[in-house]
């Protein structure tokens, strides 16, 4: 790039030199017309070179920008991927999407404009200045004194650009966040008659974004205006000085005078271009610093080790006085101790908000245990090889997400290995959803999720269950598998889960208590504490809360 910039400078000098030669010959020397033709042909050659070099510089800027944006997006993806589950919930998806798309796009300017222009301008300004200085040292001196004002002004005015551009991008992100959130909740907006309010909010965010954009632009325009003034002033000075030397002192030839007069604007135009490129460079830096802010956010993912699990059997899980609390909120899971032996059927029950889902996340290794111990087959969890553990378990969340894609893709998500349609069919059958799938116009190829066919609550749930069964896990974590299912469907599901009894450990969170009455062990959770443990009969005998729950469930009114 540097070389291209020098070559471009030489082409510019050559071009001006030839133009002056031609005009000099015709105007002052009264030369015959054909005598200038060779100079004209060389001139055209010079032009060609100039445009080619300029293109080369631009092309490499484009390449650099491409590489930079790809690598920044990759870093962002890696960052998001490494987040602990609860950290990933923070912030709005629209904001993150805006960061990933728009903010990174904004970084383009630094590489595609600022850097190439910097190199181009540096080479051209230097060489053109040397030529001017040789031709007419006084003009050189004027430039030497006035030109530095351009970068100085540029920087003074540009100081705020970075922050303003950051502000602009965060306004855009805010708009994206509000918009996406509203889009997801449109029915709610309408049912509560909040259309006007929400529209106002969108309008406000949109207007703030416009204002922030104008804020950035005003700086840019002021910047160019002042650069324009400076260059105008010094070109005017040079013109005056040349005229005085030519007329009053008569110690400057027309040739040198005109040559300098052609070159000086080239020099200043490079500086002006650098000025606006500098502006977009600063704006890009604002964008980059937004990305950096996000990359800096700390997250404590659950740490894992390298020890593989030995046996082929389902591993035994032991919690010893393990506790957990979320960063925000008042909820604490009090130190809990539990042992889950291979192939045991375990149920976790309790009132809503008691911490059942939290405990399940802890047991599955999605949330980090704070104190106490978490042993998998006797090995501390943080030493266990991550892949080995996750290969053996499967987890059904309380509100499963249906991805935008085919039914097949949604079920296949459950396994890292290749699975045949036969296997998909088998698990779908177990989850009680196969009949429904085969009734669909495109069967497994029907597109569901956003942008696809809608599902009823129970259908969604059953697709998610099929997904969890796909990899034939050794431990199954189920968070309320039968919510949204009717008695009959629940019955079908219950039977197929029973048939897995000897193939997998099952840890189930349930509030429909009849689904867990046959469990080997039931843990009763109350306000973050384990308040009871035992089989159904044991608990029914000894635990008041459990009795009460059973009674109300059977339809009897609460005492």
């Amino acid at each position: 790039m540097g070389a291209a910039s020098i070559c471009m400078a030489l082409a510019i000098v050559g071009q001006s030199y030839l133009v002056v030669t031609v005009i000099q010959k015709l105007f002052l020397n009264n030369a015959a017309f054909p005598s200038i033709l060779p100079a004209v042909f060389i001139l055209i050659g010079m032009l060609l070179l100039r445009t080619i070099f300029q293109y080369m510089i631009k092309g490499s800027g484009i390449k650099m920008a491409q590489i930079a944006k790809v690598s920044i997006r990759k870093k962002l993806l890696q960052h998001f991927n490494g987040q602990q589950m609860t950290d990933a919930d923070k912030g709005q998806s629209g904001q993150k999407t805006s960061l990933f798309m728009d903010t990174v796009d904004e970084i383009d300017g630094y590489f595609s404009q600022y850097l190439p222009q910097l190199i181009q301008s540096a080479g051209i300004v230097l060489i053109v200045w040397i030529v001017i200085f040789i031709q007419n040292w006084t003009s050189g001196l004027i430039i030497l004194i006035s030109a530095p004002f351009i970068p100085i002004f540029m920087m003074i005015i540009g100081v705020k650009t970075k922050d303003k551009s950051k502000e602009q991008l965060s306004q855009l992100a805010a708009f994206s966040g509000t918009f996406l959130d509203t889009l997801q909740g449109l029915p709610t907006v309408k049912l509560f008659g909040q259309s006007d309010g929400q529209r106002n909010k969108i309008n406000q965010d949109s207007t703030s974004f416009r204002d922030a954009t104008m804020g950035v632009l005003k700086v840019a325009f002021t910047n160019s205006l002042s650069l324009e003034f400076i260059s105008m002033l010094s070109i005017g000075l040079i013109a005056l000085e040349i005229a005085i030397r030519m007329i009053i002192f008569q110690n400057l030839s027309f040739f040198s005078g005109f040559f300098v007069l052609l070159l000086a604007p080239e020099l200043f135009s490079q500086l002006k271009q650098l000025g606006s490129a500098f502006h977009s460079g600063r704006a890009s830096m604002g964008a980059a610093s937004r990305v950096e802010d996000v990359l800096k956010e700390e997250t404590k993912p659950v740490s894992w080790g390298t020890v593989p699990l030995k046996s082929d059997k389902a591993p035994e899980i032991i919690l010893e006085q393990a506790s957990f609390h979320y960063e925000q909120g008042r909820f604490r899971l009090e130190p809990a101790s539990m042992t889950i032996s291979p192939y045991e059927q375990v149920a976790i029950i309790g009132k809503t908000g008691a911490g059942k889902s939290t405990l399940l996340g802890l047991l599955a290794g999605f949330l980090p245990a704070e104190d106490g111990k978490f042993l998998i087959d006797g090995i501390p969890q943080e030493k266990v090889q991550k892949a080995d553990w996750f290969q053996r378990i499967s987890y059904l969340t309380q509100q499963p997400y249906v991805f935008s894609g085919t039914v097949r893709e949604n079920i296949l998500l459950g396994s890292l290995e290749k699975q045949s349609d036969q296997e998909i069919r088998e698990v779908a059958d177990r989850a009680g959803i196969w009949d429904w799938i085969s009734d669909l116009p495109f069967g497994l190829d029907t597109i569901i999720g956003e942008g696809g066919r809608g599902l009823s609550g129970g259908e969604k749930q059953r697709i998610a269950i099929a997904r969890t069964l796909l990899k034939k896990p050794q431990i199954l974590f189920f968070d309320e598998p039968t919510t949204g299912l009717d008695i009959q469907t629940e019955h079908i599901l219950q039977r197929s889960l029973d048939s897995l009894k000897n193939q997998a450990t099952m840890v189930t969170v349930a509030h429909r208590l009849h689904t867990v009455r046959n469990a080997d062990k039931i843990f009763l959770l109350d306000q973050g504490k384990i308040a009871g443990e035992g089989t159904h009969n044991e608990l029914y005998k000894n635990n008041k809360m459990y009795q009460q729950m059973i009674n109300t469930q059977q339809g009897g009114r609460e005492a």
Partner: protein
Amino acid sequence: MKDISLVLKMMLKEKKDILFSVFFGFLAGITAVSLFAASGYLISQAAFAPPIYTLMILVASVKLLGITSAISRYGERYFSHRGTFTILKNIRLKVYDQIEPLASRLLQKYRSGDILARIVGDVESLQHFFLRVFYPPIVLAAVFIATIFFTMYISAGVALTMSAGMIVVLIVFPAIFYMIQKKAALSMREKRGVLSSEFTDYLYGFRELTIFQQAERKEQQLFDEMNQYEEMKASENRQLAIREAIVIFFSFFIAIIILVQAGFYVAEGNLAGTLLAMLFMIAITVFEDTPSMAVLPAHLEESKSSSKRLIEVWENEEPSKVAVQELEPDLPLHFDFKDVFIQYPNEKKPAVQHASLQIKPGKNIAIVGPSGSGKSTLMQALLTFAPVKSGHILVNGEDINTIAPDSLWEQMNVSLQHNHFFYGSIYENLRFANRNASAEICRDALEKVQLTHFSLEDQVLEKGTNLSGGEKQRLALARLFLREASIWLLDEPTSSLDSITEQQIMNEIEKVTKYQTVVTIRHRLTGLESMDRIIVMNQGEIVEQGTYTELMGKENGYFKAMKELESQQLAF
């Protein structure tokens, strides 16, 4: 033209800024040309050592022109950008207004990330329509014509060359570029939409992806998408750079032709030698801004595809019927379904068929039936959200389609099967149901649903991810306690609650709905004895309806069989 009509329409609202931009643009261009012409003339004069005052006049006019040019340039930029970004702001709002009525239907056709990409990225890309496509040619042409007129006084031949050059640059080049412009623009915008929707899908499904260890695979997929998008973009940018280089070369070339031509006239003695430098300077300057014409076709194409992508979202949707009839606010609602069929788009069979039922004021109604039998769909029909294919739904004797939906919703308290919460505090989420609810009343509502462990300032994350399953349902119900409504529609309001809490909260609801209609969808068949009516659905049809005793009295009744199955299961 049709594609871009959206932008044109919005643009016309900013007439003042457009006029100012064109005016200042012209002024800046023409003064720049004069400036360089004057300096070319100056240097030639200087060669003959003229009286000093001519020189002073020239230098002064150079200064003046310079300042005018710089200030006009500022004005042009300011007004054109202010106009543009106001237009964009209005377009964003217009897009929102268009898609808002489509509500949930929208997300069955488009992915939310895609819509986001449209309203942000595509709208942003429309800025080039005004800034690069619409007004620059006008300004350029005006400056050209003025300059050509001026040149004509000096040399008609040169003016002719200049006109030819102008035609090539302003018309021929853009036309050629436009024709060879591959239809890359649309596919690039589309790719961006895909990238954006894949990314939101990734964020929304992050839990599932981590759980199944698929996050890396998805990451790789996103990375590939992104690489392709950037590759497309870079190659388009290179294309543009080449075109720009061609135009730059051509405009220099024309300047040289003019130099040679004028030189020829000078050599022949048909033109004063002092004008040679001036003509060359004019030519160089007037062609200086033309590279922008090289990128014009690409921007036009891009704006067209962006605009198309925006319009496409609502284009084929039937315009929402102007239902004007307001419901009388205090009259209790009476619903009458007459042989209603509901069929979702692209489906072979209806989700609900032959539905005939009545919902009388003040009654307590339960809808039960297996998963997928059409319970939620039936409720959606009450909310006017469902695609009713045939049959009639009457509200107080009027067809539901003639009633302004707002006045209907105003009288309803609805809890959907999946409720949405907005990113913000608990208080904000509660006040969503009633703008005038005081903190006191909100706390009261929280108490009714046993959420007293939350303060009003506590934050609710997007989609309520930091709430437990049951807490989400309870918060949704808390919202309803803040509103007065004559009919409550509850789609499995307590499916994620334990039986004790469920009972307590249902009691609270009963207390405030003594005289209201309540329609509840439920799976559990316990506690139905007190219902005024039970509607039993199966496979889209209402198979039975009646009171508990009526249904239990039926030999081989569907409800009875279900109830027996349940009692078997519940027996301990």
